[in-house]
């Protein structure tokens, strides 16, 4: 039978423009596999798409309507993720929330069906701090760092981590929330202008990013000291600010640009044959790449599952096993045409969070391109691991669960 990878995408609503790029990348990669390799391990891939409009209720509807035979879910919204955590567990379908969702799901002992490798929000925050620390030659004492965040569950995620890190490194953290949708950020930026923080970290989404970056250029903040999480690091966010956005940074867990061999293949098999999900113009954009990367990880996990269970056809449970023992090394990445696109990944029963590596990308406004300016570096496990343990324990307690055994 066919392998079903339902896509819960959002192409409408306030976050539609971003959702569309991710969805295109996700779909195109599977199309490539179908066209070039005839699917995975000889089984065709189906990608039924369902529009969630970033709305939890619709997300649930989409989940229920597509879960028949589904192998993996990528709900693409923190809200929907929270809804689905108990459901996928009950339905025995794995869920992959790559770089979003519930961070403590990295603890595979509690969250058996949720995976968030290769990196999560807390890793992102930690990598950003690490980068800042590198810039400052290791000394953050007395530095002022401001967090501009989307005033929602998502935006609030890094606060704990940053506070913990502040204790450790001695910087001073100011919190600046921005309400949805974030069109008007005058107060916030006037405050930032007065505070003159040394660095600004942003956890934004949608129009909030564009306005923030624009306001930052308006107050002539040094853009190289303005660092976003990966959801604040797409072309959409910097382009409206024009040349002045030059130097803006964002943390990422995968490569940027279309300078990888795989894009040749994508052009050849997908774009030029008219099978692209979008209009084919967004290959190589940050969010497209993320979608493609997510699809690649899913496909690898599926192939892994086929190997483990020695079958062409998969069930959700088998897929989960494939994900739980996923290993991708650089050789494999090279074979995939993605050398250097992401870090090596290994997932275990206990660790669903993967390596937690991130790199910093920087915007070149002239060339209208992102480029990676650091290697993939590790987050501060000594801070994050306890946080994960604490939060997942709380979840387990609330739901009267026991941690499972991971041999």
């Amino acid at each position, binding site marked *: 039978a066919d392998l079903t990878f339902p896509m819960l995408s959002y192409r409408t609503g306030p976050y539609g423009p971003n959702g569309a790029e991710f969805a295109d990348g996700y779909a195109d990669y599977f199309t490539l596999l179908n066209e070039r390799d005839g699917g995975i391990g000889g089984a065709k891939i189906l990608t039924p798409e369902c529009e969630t409009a970033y709305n939890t209720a619709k997300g649930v509807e989409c989940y229920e309507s597509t879960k028949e035979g589904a192998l993996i879910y990528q709900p693409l919204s923190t809200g929907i993720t929270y809804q689905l955590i108990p459901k996928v567990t009950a339905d025995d379908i794995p869920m992959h929330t790559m770089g979003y969702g519930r961070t403590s799901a990295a603890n595979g002992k509690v969250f058996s069906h949720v995976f968030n490798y290769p990196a999560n929000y807390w890793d992102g925050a930690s990598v950003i701090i690490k980068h800042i620390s590198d810039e400052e030659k290791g000394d953050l004492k007395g530095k002022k760092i401001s967090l501009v965040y989307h005033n929602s569950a998502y935006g609030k995620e890094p606060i704990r981590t940053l506070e913990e890190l502040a204790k450790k490194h001695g910087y001073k953290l100011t919190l600046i929330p921005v309400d949805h949708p974030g069109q008007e950020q005058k107060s916030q930026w*006037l405050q930032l202008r007065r505070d003159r923080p040394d660095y600004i970290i942003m956890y934004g989404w949608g129009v909030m990013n564009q306005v923030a970056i*624009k306001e930052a250029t308006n107050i002539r903040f040094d853009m190289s000291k303005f660092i976003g999480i990966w959801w604040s690091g797409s072309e959409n966010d910097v382009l409206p600010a024009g040349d002045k956005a030059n130097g803006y940074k964002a943390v990422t867990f995968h490569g940027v640009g279309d300078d990888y061999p795989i894009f040749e293949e994508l052009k050849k098999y997908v774009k030029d044959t008219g099978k692209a999900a979008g209009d084919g113009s967004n290959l190589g954009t940050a969010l497209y790449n993320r979608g493609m990367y997510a699809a690649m990880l899913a496909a690898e996990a599926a192939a892994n599952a086929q190997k483990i269970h020695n079958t062409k056809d998969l069930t959700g449970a088998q897929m989960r096993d494939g994900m739980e023992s996923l290993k991708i090394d650089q050789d494999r990445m090279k074979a995939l045409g993605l050398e250097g696109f992401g870090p090596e990944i290994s997932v275990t029963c206990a660790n669903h969070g993967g390596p937690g590596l991130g790199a910093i990308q920087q915007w070149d406004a002239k060339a209208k391109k992102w480029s990676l300016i650091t290697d993939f570096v590790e987050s501060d496990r000594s801070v994050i691991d306890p946080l994960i343990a604490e939060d997942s324990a709380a979840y387990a307690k609330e739901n009267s669960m026991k941690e499972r055994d991971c041999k």
Partner: protein
Amino acid sequence: MSPLFLNALEVILNGLMAGIMYSLVALGFVLIFKASGIFNYAQGVMALFAALTLVGFQTGQVPFAHLINAMFGTEIHHWGSGMNTFLAIILTMIVMIIFAWLLEKIVLKHMVNQAPIILFMTTIGLAYFMEGFGDLMWGADIKTMDVGLPSGGSLWLEDFTKGWAAEGTEYYGMYIDVLDVWAAGIAILLVIALTLFSQYTKTGRALRAVADDHQAALTVGISLRTIWIIVWSLAGFVALVAGIMWGSKSGVQFSLSLIALKALPVLILGGFTSIPGAIIGGLIIGVGEKLFEFSIGGMIGGATENWFAYVLALAFLMFRPQGLFGEKIIERV
């Protein structure tokens, strides 16, 4: 002067500017309400639609490209080249007029003499429709609006005010966004023109008559049709201006339609029927919410602007239920 005082001053100044940006949207509401008693929920979407259309013309996008491609398997996106901004604005305006005309013909015509809430609901249907239509026509991706308006902090003001602070204190000069200044200028022109129009022309009087009583207006020979086409076109024009301003500020995308929510408190504070009220309301809301966030917001966790604007408007309404400049609500038996 102490930096704190200067900062407060700066907040007030920026509040005024932000308020004017809200007023631009509120104006469209006022026009339509004044002329037909319709609370036009679709005003925000109209601004979005106008902005999309303008950018579409400017960049030479093919309308409905995605739909056409999906249906016929073609690969079209853009005409050869875009067009000059001025021409694009004119064409957009024509589109807005055609839209007003169709709206009257297809929908509003049938809604004469209906309860306000029904008319309100109709505009909600319209909002949905236009949103879907706009996305279908121009695509849902984020577009950049550039009509040549300057933007960014004003260096001149910064230098000018740098020396104001007391000796020995740290002060960086006052900040203001040039785009906002432009918006303020344009908004004031608009308000003056519209006020003159509604107060001193025969059509202006007819507008108010229609808002009071559709049937009676018909019996004196006022053509609801003409009036509605005029006001919806005007509202389309105001939407276009708002779309340009907000689009230049934050890009053109769905979220643009949500600025309507920032315009609503302005609207009730100024009064639904008053054009100058929209501006004054905007100024009060702008300054109020910014000052509150500046002085108290930080202590209670921030992001207070959204609700504070409404609470402020509510406080004013408790004293003047028709808003500061709205027409008195006639209560008689």
